[in-house]
């Protein structure tokens, strides 16, 4: 049994601090909306496809609303107006609105306004019901062919071509993968729109498009049936389109989503406000669709030193957890991220890694947790890198990680080859098989190095949380407290996509999702 290390009071205190920290941010969230939130609303109503120039219709329409300065009423409202004007389909609605002189369109008579909202609400309820139905379909398959026990072996495909991805995902599943992640092309998170259709060219990854999601999930459904073992699919939502991608993932029955409250800010230089607002709506969708989210604290220790910055990971996890809970996500949906990243040239790194992994377990006992492998200190010596990954496999099973991203022996070179995944899966299967139950056999001494290190890290994490409470999250990020990356509140990409809500802002989906919370 891994140690307790810290008292329940101490943990509760950290949670309370996280709540205090997020309070002001939730005020910001309540007051504002973003272009991507509104685009999501339209997508949910079924607005799909691209315009003449290839730009998604939802972008054309929302930009139009924004330019006309009326987006603050909510895209749903204008969608309703379009219906009133006689639009028979979402497409017609777009055409009508892009034509109409929006700015000059005054409000309707109060009762008409009421009816409009009522109609739109009922359409929203139907749209919501359809989403739920799709989710139910996924869950049915999951009960029919259950997953293998945790840690779920998570591997990445990243050919840039969705069809090659399918090929490789199938192979990985047959070799034992439990979760397939299709990582995105390097540039995507900076795009303020979601590409359309099946894509065959990407760099370092494949574009996240609704069609690509569909193609891959369909392929994995077949594989799952064949193997009699459900294989999950995940993708990445962080970036300028967090809510839209969350919606597409939910609609296409993905099982997980990389979704972090701060990753975009720190690692993609996306504006803070934009990110905070977007992450909330996207997480509401994840909560509703029963998607497991993965947070990205592991990234902090690729830029900062994993030993020195260990406490920033813990602090951020409490904050990410709080953002998640406040968006309606339950513990079982929290794939809280951390990783095995301490420089292997140091002494006693296994003790240090165990300490960290056990501490995370201790702080988040009911979350699946998402454990990342060594990456930054991986060597081009594939034999060494493989051995290094094996130790991470051990820590993963030992500390009962729910989701384990498997390290690749070629991490320091290229995105995984088909064989790299096979090799990683075979080793992880062996280590999991060999070490299952180890935790029950051992008691970690509370007076040992592991426990002392855990207490030290937790202590520093609490201090950092206190700093964030007193000076505010924004100041803390400004000081580069997380991942050594400094960002300013008004800096970064996408701030212009943030719009303050009007008093009569209308978003029936948000209403529905917040209602059930």
């Amino acid at each position, binding site marked *: 049994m891994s140690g307790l290390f810290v008292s329940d009071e101490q943990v509760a205190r950290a949670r309370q601090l996280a709540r205090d920290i997020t309070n002001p941010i939730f005020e910001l969230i309540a007051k504002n909306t973003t272009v991507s939130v509104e685009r999501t609303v339209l997508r949910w109503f079924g607005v799909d496809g691209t315009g003449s120039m290839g730009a998604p219709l939802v972008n054309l329409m929302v930009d139009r609303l924004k330019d006309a300065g009326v987006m603050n009423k909510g895209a749903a409202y204008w969608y309703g107006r379009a219906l009133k004007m006689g639009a028979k389909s979402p497409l017609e609605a777009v055409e009508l609105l892009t034509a109409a002189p929006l700015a000059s369109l005054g409000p309707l008579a109060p009762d008409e306004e009421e009816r409009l909202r009522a109609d739109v609400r009922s359409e929203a309820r139907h749209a919501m019901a359809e989403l739920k139905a799709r989710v139910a379909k996924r869950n049915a398959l999951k009960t029919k062919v259950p997953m293998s026990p945790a840690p779920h072996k998570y591997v990445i495909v990243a050919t840039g071509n969705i069809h090659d991805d399918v090929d490789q995902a199938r192979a990985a599943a047959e070799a034992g993968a439990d979760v397939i992640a299709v990582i995105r092309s390097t540039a995507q998170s900076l795009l303020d729109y979601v590409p359309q259709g099946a894509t065959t060219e990407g760099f370092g990854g494949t574009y996240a498009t609704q069609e690509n999601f569909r193609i891959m999930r369909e392929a994995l459904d077949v594989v799952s049936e064949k193997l009699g073992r459900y294989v999950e699919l995940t993708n990445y939502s962080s970036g300028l389109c967090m809510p839209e991608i969350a919606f597409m993932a939910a609609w296409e029955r993905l099982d997980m989503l990389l979704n972090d409250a701060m990753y975009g800010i720190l690692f993609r230089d996306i504006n803070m406000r934009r990110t905070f607002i977007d992450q909330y709506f996207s997480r509401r969708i994840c909560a509703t669709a029963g998607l497991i989210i993965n947070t990205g604290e592991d990234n902090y220790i690729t830029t900062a030193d994993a030993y020195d910055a260990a406490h920033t990971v813990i602090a951020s996890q409490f904050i990410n957890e709080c953002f998640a809970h406040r968006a309606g996500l339950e513990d079982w949906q929290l794939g809280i991220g951390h990783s095995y990243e301490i420089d292997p040239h140091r002494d006693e790194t296994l003790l240090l890694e165990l300490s960290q992994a056990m501490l995370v377990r201790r702080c988040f006992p009911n979350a699946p947790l998402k454990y990342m492998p060594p990456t930054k200190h991986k060597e081009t010596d*594939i*034999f060494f890198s493989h051995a290094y990954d094996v130790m991470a496999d051990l820590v993963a099973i030992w500390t009962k990680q729910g989701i384990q991203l498997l390290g690749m022996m*070629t991490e320091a*070179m*290229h995105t995984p*080859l088909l*064989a790299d995944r096979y090799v990683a899966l075979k080793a992880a299967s062996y280590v999991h098989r060999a070490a299952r139950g180890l935790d029950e056999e051992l008691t970690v001494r509370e007076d040992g190095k592991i426990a002392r290190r855990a207490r030290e890290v937790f202590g520093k994490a609490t201090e950092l949380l206190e700093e964030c409470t007193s000076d505010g999250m924004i100041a803390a990020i400004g000081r580069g407290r997380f991942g050594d990356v400094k960002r300013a509140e008004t800096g970064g990409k996408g701030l212009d996509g943030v719009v303050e809500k009007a008093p009569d802002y209308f978003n029936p989906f948000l209403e529905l999702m917040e209602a059930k919370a």
Partner: protein
Amino acid sequence: MTKQLIRPYGDRKDDGVIQLSFTLPVSASEKAKEAAAVFCKKMGLTDVKVAAVERASEDYTFFIVYARSPVVLDYAELDVPEITIKKLGYQDLNALIEKKVGRRIVVLGACTGTDTHTVGIDAILNMKGFAGDYGLERYPWFEAYNLGSQVPNAELIRKAKEKNADAILVSQVVTQRDVHKDNSRQFIEEARKQGVHGKMTLLLGGPRVDHRLAIDLGFDAGFGPGTKPSSVANFIVHQVLQRLGKEEKGAHFEGEPT
């Protein structure tokens, strides 16, 4: 016959990507790295990425390389002899022997020469067998003798003649400098000398043995890693039936039926 052209698959279809590792007797340096690249290019590889240059010692450098091979293969063109016949289960095989041979089949086996690796031959002959598959000793209609290891070829053959065996099973595990081939050749010579070659069924087995090699060396068959005793039993029975003229020649058993 339609062609089936194949190339290695790394990240994408037909990208030809392969991984190599080797050691060169030079000390680690930029020049050593260049040597590794040139070496690979001389092998006809392209897009050579010398990924790792590891200082194995002062005088040796270990390299790990990823590169593309231009080699294209027509898979359809390859033919690997895999004439398989229906393999009988334990009960049926015993029944077949009883019915068609009418007497117990006698086999002797040993790990010959200076080789002491008995685990392989034991797996085939001893009761216990291998991977849940009974060994020949267990078959009521086989009379199996396991002479153990370090048995001189001449002695093994002499003993086989005494028991006038139907088959001799030779195991060779140590293969350094092809000692297994030399020893096997020596066994065949001896078999010729003692006049059992062509009369008794001579089987060779071991981790580096395959059917082709065994045939080339003058054995009737070869069995490699993971061989199941039942496969061997089946093969022997059909050999015996052939020698008794109760089954047409040529149809030989190899590996699990697919």
